[in-house]
């Protein structure tokens, strides 16, 4: 997590005309989030979460805009963004399937779930289907050990999973 490297010298940043951090979002953050903290930097996580919620991931341009909004060098915001597992610096599928791999889930058979998803969707952990619908991720403890094995699909937690009911859940997603 802490050692994502980038090719700084030759890196090209894809840019678009329209800003990712819209004026409306800026106004909302300025009013609701900034006053919560004594420093602007403290709003980094909430701002990145808001950007990601709107665009699905965090393009470099969005990071630059967030930095400008937070009055920080872009490198500071990138430093924070690369540390956390939930921030996507490359596009992800419409549905991210996070399958828990920690101890309780492993004891109760999370491997079969991962294998079943791999078979069904043809993607391994960290990969996205070609149609951009699903991304499969291994994740450490989701805090649902009592109802293991479990998986998070976007924001929804699915508990007491079996290969069959995970299959049903995946089929129910468009």
């Amino acid at each position, binding site marked *: 997590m*802490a050692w994502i490297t980038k090719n700084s010298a030759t890196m090209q940043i894809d840019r678009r005309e329209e800003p990712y951090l819209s004026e409306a979002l800026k106004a909302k953050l300025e009013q609701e989030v900034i006053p919560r903290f004594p420093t602007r930097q403290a709003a980094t*996580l909430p701002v990145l979460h808001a950007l990601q919620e709107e665009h699905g991931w965090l393009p470099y341009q969005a990071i630059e805009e967030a930095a400008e909004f937070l009055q920080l060098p872009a490198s500071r915001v990138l430093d*924070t963004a690369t540390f956390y597992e939930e921030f996507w610096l490359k596009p992800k599928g419409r549905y991210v399937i*996070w399958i828990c791999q920690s*101890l*309780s889930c492993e004891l109760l058979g999370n491997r079969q779930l991962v294998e079943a998803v791999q078979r069904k969707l043809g993607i391994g952990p960290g990969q996205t289907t070609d149609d951009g619908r699903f991304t499969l991720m291994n994740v450490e*403890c989701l*805090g649902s050990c*009592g109802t293991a094995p479990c998986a998070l699909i976007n924001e929804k937690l699915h508990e007491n999973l079996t290969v069959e009911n995970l299959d049903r859940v995946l089929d129910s997603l468009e």
Partner: protein
Amino acid sequence: MALAEPVLLKRIPTPPWGDFADRKLVPYEQYVATGGYAALDQALAMDPKAVIEVVKASELRGRGGAGFPAGMKWSFLPPEDGGRRFLAVNADESEPGTFKDRVIIEYDPHLLLEGIAICMHACRLDTAYIYIRGEYHHQRHVLEKALREAYEHKIFGPGSRLGQINGRDVHCYVHRGAGAYICGEETALLESLEGKRGWPRIKPPFPAVAGAFARPTIINNVETLATVPFILERGADWFKSMGTPRPEGAPPTVPASYGPKLFGISGHVNRPGVYEEELGVKMSTLIEQHCQGMRHGKKYKAAIPGGISMGVLGPDEYDAMLDFDVGKKHNCLGLGTAGVIVMDEDTDMVAVARNIARFFSHESCGQCTPCREGTNWMYRILKRIEAGDGTTKDLDLLLEIAGSIGAMPGTTICGLADGANWAVRTILNKFWHEFESRVTKERYVSLAVLNTR
């Protein structure tokens, strides 16, 4: 010795007093109708210092893993200087096996908010941040809704019952993390709160003196704060009527294990879940009475007493008393978060060790070299042993690495590596034969033989 009635779970149906299936969110009205926020009113009628004294007298120990006496922590704050003072609520519950705070937040969020309000009054803190892990989406939404209710009813916000503290209106915010186990370490949590990467800080200065934004800060776990209203309401003596007292003849500086505690039990049991019991309950009681025994009638083999960083209890420690002293008695790190993971006779302990080592190598923040590298070495060695390619030398190497990483051997800033250290070391020591049977004896091929043509 069993808890006569539920305390923290009084509004959350739990066997033997209720049914898991009946658990639902307790909204503000119901919370108040069942005696909620009475303890806050009681606290507000008291001098803040007197509130701290009650918590101190109860000897309430932090429920987040380290077991530090909460009242003592509160009394470490420097005198007020008119500047801001913060409360950071640790709801970054990410220790594998732990899912107790989630239950409080999900079903009885106002209990937490009441504890927060009491703490803010007692310690004269003007702003509280509830740092909740990013993966708890539903719980975050529940908490945000409860907070809106609390603002409406003047628990927080302008004109709140707490009045102004440090010359400011009192506020409480939900702050969402973004998926990093290390942010549950208190100073990493503060760094993350400040918008930086979650790298633990070197202590001192301790957060009570210079914490969030370099101001005095109290950091408490969700369950710790949720316990506070009950202590105020029913008194320190009531609280100390539960749990295990300090050993006979020990000086009062030795902390005891008083009060009720949430136990999250998972793994190979029939009815896993979050239960409430007195501290000092036997693990066998939890498994047999609360969880209705081992799954498929299998035999018990091992258990993690409280989150994977605490190490394991072996086959002969089935009756271990789960209180803060479990570590001393049973050669593990301690009670931790009381997230018990139970394993049956078919469990492969090499795989368990590998899983745990993978967790720590994945979650190491990368700041201290012994942890960043050491956890990963252990993971690779354990993978090798699991695949059948290990040698006897690997076992010694594992013990050597495990014994040299962590804050206890003094090579890292925080305790993450200690977790890896204790987990791997105790599994290896208590199940040595299992590891031994999986490795091949090192063969020394002499050069003389190789050179023979």
